[in-house]
């Protein structure tokens, strides 16, 4: 038997885990960026210069905290929820092409895989919210579920338009099809996708499920220590993966222009630009109300996504793309 493919898969899987964990540095980056948006300095004390070791300090703090399980919690749901949150965050990276050949598994149904796996995170919100047996948690969970309905449909519809243009569900084929980045051909589709993706990430202005100012911390109110850190890490892993998907679907993924940089560098540049933009949005806009989000999803994003599909069809007819 040939062991090489198996070994190679394990190595690739480990590399992905390393990449996701390395993104923990975004904890520090986001605090720095948040500081700069408010003309503060952000963390400065742990590690000179500029408090670069803040992430390690945060993680050590979280690791050394007590792992509290509320007495009335549904134990299994409560304990499993953080893992269920973290797993899809990892799984998404499986199909994302970092470079022409740098992809763990170029599934021919990549787009479907992504939309299936990313909406998984709502399950973990619901598990944690219900399992905590706490009214704030369960309200956060309800909101997460209601939110899912309103953003998932436009999200998937805007992905369908991309698939129509590329003629393939594989992400690598989609990148190869983008001699013109798709954002030029369907800017409306990109906007819809961006807004829906921020809602999917549960980040401000759509962090209704967490909503510190109303629900304490929403679904993760009862979590502490490392379990809470898993929610935290998966939020950052999801932010990066959503940015990577945006870069892949609409901005030509690893394709470069002008500068002859290696494809993976182009990919990372585009991805982290989107990470920055998502943080920029977070530190600019206030949280919307749940009815506003539902209105936005159903009354604006959905028609625009449908319009975008019609537009894409028209493009296909006229230019035979």
């Amino acid at each position, binding site marked *: 038997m040939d062991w090489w493919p198996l070994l190679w898969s394990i190595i690739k899987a480990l590399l992905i885990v390393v990449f996701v964990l390395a993104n923990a540095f975004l904890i520090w980056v986001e605090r720095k*960026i948040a*500081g*700069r*948006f*408010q*003309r*503060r*300095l952000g963390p*400065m004390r742990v590690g000179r210069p500029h408090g670069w070791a803040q992430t390690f300090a945060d993680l050590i703090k979280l690791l050394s905290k007590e792992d509290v399980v509320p007495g009335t919690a549904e134990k299994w749901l409560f304990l499993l929820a953080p893992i269920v949150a973290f797993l899809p965050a990892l799984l998404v990276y499986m199909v994302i092409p970092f470079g022409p050949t740098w992809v763990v598994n170029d599934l021919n149904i990549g787009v479907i895989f992504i939309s299936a796996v990313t909406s998984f995170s709502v399950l973990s919100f619901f598990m944690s919210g219900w399992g905590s047996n706490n009214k704030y948690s369960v309200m956060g969970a309800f909101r997460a579920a209601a939110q899912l309905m309103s953003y998932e449909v436009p999200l998937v519809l805007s992905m369908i338009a991309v698939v129509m243009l590329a003629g393939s569900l594989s992400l690598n084929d989609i990148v190869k099809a983008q001699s013109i980045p798709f954002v030029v051909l369907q800017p409306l589709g990109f906007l819809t996708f961006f807004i829906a993706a921020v809602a999917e990430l549960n980040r401000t202005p759509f962090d209704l499920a967490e909503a510190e100012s109303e629900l304490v911390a929403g679904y993760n109110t009862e979590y502490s220590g490392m379990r809470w850190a898993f929610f935290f890490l998966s939020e950052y892993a999801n932010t990066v993966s959503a940015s990577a998907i945006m870069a892949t679907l609409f901005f030509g993924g690893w394709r470069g222009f002008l500068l002859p940089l290696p494809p993976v560098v182009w990919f990372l540049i585009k991805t982290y630009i989107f990470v920055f933009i998502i943080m*920029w*949005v977070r*530190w*600019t*806009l206030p949280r919307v109300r749940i009815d506003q989000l539902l209105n936005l999803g159903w009354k*604006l994003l959905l028609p625009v996504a449908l319009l975008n599909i019609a537009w894409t069809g028209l493009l296909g007819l006229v230019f035979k793309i």
Partner: protein
Amino acid sequence: MSSIIADILRSANSIVQGHLVTIREFFQKPVTEQYPDERLPRMEGYRGHPTLLVEPETGRPKCTACGACARACPNNAIELEGMKAEDGRRLPAKYRLDMTRCLVCNLCVEACPFDALAMSREYELVSWDREGLILDMPDLLRAGAKEQGLTYPLPVKAPVVEKEGEKA
């Protein structure tokens, strides 16, 4: 329909405006002051705790232990005892300022007929316990000398207080 579109455009515009504001702030210099490493310049006329001024010639306190400051103090923060030096001049033997009570009102400085008191410009008055905030004569003289641009004790021969003063 057209009002809906106008609505959408208006909100989109305000969202863009908001982002322009934040990105402008992003590239400005942060206003944070890294406190122990950097300090803000103190304002003109900033008042810290009262201090005892020193006679630059002799290194003795200017104070004559007349007690006017203690009477003027609305909070009874000043406690003092007097004594006579060898040359017959009255000096304070004990002078305690309780900074847990002082409200930095400047009345003692105004009351002093000998201009022996001044407000310092010190703002770092921290201590682990209450006792640390009770300033004794050496503390006050050191702070006063600093306000006068001198270092205390001064390099002059005449010593400040002698032991007899303790009971005076």
